[in-house]
């Protein structure tokens, strides 16, 4: 039977088993490459198609990050279960494909890599992560409704968690530790670059078009992503009542 091109079914469907999940509002479905949850503002942009233009060491580092997701070696099975749910809530990864952020957090903690500093009133980052997992377990975070999970994360971000493990931590700093690790893991992954239209590595070719809005032609490199969804993110989130 011929495809009905008025419906999106003819497009490659890489959304996994949860394909019934609808894209939020009018965000376009990703048509090339992969983005988290397969939606984004740049539906025809796949940064990995540009890998042939990158220098060899960069290409190796970036492709290795995508192809060889590290095994869990630092967290326990129970911690992984709790923290995976937590990471999905705070990064709004509510469907496949998901960037496996916890695997990269685990790798960094396992290898003992740090970011060069620690607040005087905080334990080492690995201990902070373990206490966060315990604190979430004490609240039975995994089994809360999504609305309650989001509300709990808001209280976490504002340092308004009390009792149990949370009394042994500076909660808002624990939040900043968790976010530092999770956001680094999320935005170091090329799937997120597809989502936000990031040009990625540009060596050795560089840029000669700088995106000046005052120039009538050649604002963007030909290989840069085209936005299919022109909306000011600030106004948009306000309109949706998300802020």
């Amino acid at each position, binding site marked *: 039977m011929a495809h009905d091109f008025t419906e999106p079914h003819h497009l490659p469907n890489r959304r996994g088993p949860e394909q019934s999940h609808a894209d939020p509002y009018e965000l376009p479905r990703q048509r090339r490459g992969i983005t988290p949850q397969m939606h984004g503002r740049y539906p025809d942009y796949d940064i990995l198609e540009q890998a042939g233009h990158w220098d060899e060491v960069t290409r190796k580092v970036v492709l290795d990050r995508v192809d060889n997701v590290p095994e869990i070696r630092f967290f326990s099975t129970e911690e992984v279960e709790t923290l995976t749910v937590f990471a999905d809530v705070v990064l709004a990864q509510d469907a496949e494909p998901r960037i496996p952020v916890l695997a990269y957090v685990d790798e960094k903690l396992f290898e003992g890599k*740090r970011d060069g*500093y*620690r607040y005087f009133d905080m334990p080492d980052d690995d201990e902070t992560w373990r206490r966060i997992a315990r604190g979430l377990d004490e609240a039975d975070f995994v089994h809360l409704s999504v609305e309650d999970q989001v509300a709990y994360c808001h209280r976490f971000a504002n340092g308004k968690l009390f009792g149990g493990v949370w009394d042994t931590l500076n909660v808002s700093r624990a939040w900043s530790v968790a976010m530092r690790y999770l956001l680094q893991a999320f935005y*170091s992954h090329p799937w997120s670059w597809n989502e936000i239209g990031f040009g990625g590595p540009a060596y050795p070719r560089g840029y000669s078009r*700088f995106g*000046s*809005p005052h120039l009538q032609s050649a604002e963007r490199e030909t290989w840069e992503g085209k936005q299919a969804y022109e909306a000011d993110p600030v106004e948009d989130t306000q309109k949706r009542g998300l802020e």
Partner: protein
Amino acid sequence: MRIPESFVKGSVVMPKDNDSPYLLDMHERGLQNLDRMAKYPLSAPVDLVVVGAGAGGVTLAQRLARAGWRIVILEKGPFWDPDRDWVSDEKGSAGLYWNDIRIISGDDPIEMGKNNSGVGVGGSMTHFAGYTPRFHPSDFEVKTRDGVAVDWPISYWDLKESFERIELELPVAGQDWPWGDPHSYPHGPHPIAGAASVAWQGARNCGIEMRVGPVSITNGVFGNRPHCIYRGFCLQGCKVNAKASPLITHLPDAIEYGVEVRANCMATRVEIDEATGRCTGVTYVDEENSAQLALQRFHALGYDPKKHAALEYIWYAGVDLLNEPEKLLEDAQELEPALVIVDSLSRVALGIKSENDNAEMSRLMKLGVIPIARETNAGVVLVHHTSATGTGPRGATAIRNSADQVISIIAAEDKTKAKTGTLNIFPSKPRRKTAHIAARITGDIEADGWARVERTDIEEDPF
């Protein structure tokens, strides 16, 4: 106002006292003269030990090396090769930061790591954004003008020439600066990106003037350094060699003048002589073990080898330097000494009949002394004794013809034993200049040939 000719836009004038841009390769980013880098033996005395191969240390070392100082730079991190080690990727560049944990406190502490500190040769400048504004003259008088903090003990005008010199060496590209002390930059401003042009337009609409700020990024060819390609990863280490860091702006030249960088070596302690309170060396740990690097002014030959255990030396006696120079030369190449002292010629050059004979001294120079200076990485000091009754150090014409400089030494304490002599310092490399010094023997020359010499004056102060 004096405007250096090098500040004329489009000028091909290059820094006079820094050849680094020419010592880089056009097609490879790593340093090309590493095979020529000095290697001082662990026990060799050097003039200066710099801890940290960053913006301050490498620049200081480059200038002092040109003044003849022997310098070792200890650097905790590796010797970067931008082609091999750096990537166009934020996460993959974490190795550029000082990631050892430091404790921060206070209400709004500065986060360390990638924000403010680097590791490896080039220091934090390898991943700084490149922004290099000058201070304004008013910045030095904040107490007087604004009633806050304190005034600087120096003024902008004391630093103006230094600003100009470093702006030429980095080099800095930017729009003519109209505020404070109006000035220009060696390279013109870089084009601005979309977001900046929106800000620019907005500022114009509000009647605010903006300028494209100065960045130490080439906007044109600079020696063998290429033009910026606008790849946008300044904060991840410049793979182009367009953005300045001491790795490419000062170290190539410093290496030519005998600076050694000991990478992967972390300084752990400064050694102090308790009796004198003076620094005697720096202890460091490298990847395998710990070691101590002796610090000793090269010019101050007054140290007693018996009192300075850190100084290893091998004493040669009965060497026929005139007829068997290869014997000492082989040893010198193997031991890689920092300094070879040829003293008491009658003992080490058995073939010499008279130290006061120009022809014989000329042969000795040609066969025995100059090859050591040329073939090894060592400086050679030739102590040439002559009779006090002579009108001057005879036989020294031949030495003067080959030596970098000739210094007279007078042992003055005991007039009856007074000797005159020449202390000749041969440069280990033809380009090396040694600082002019005058020396005075404060005691008798020891039986083993060591003289107590006190430095009395530096005619050409490297500072």
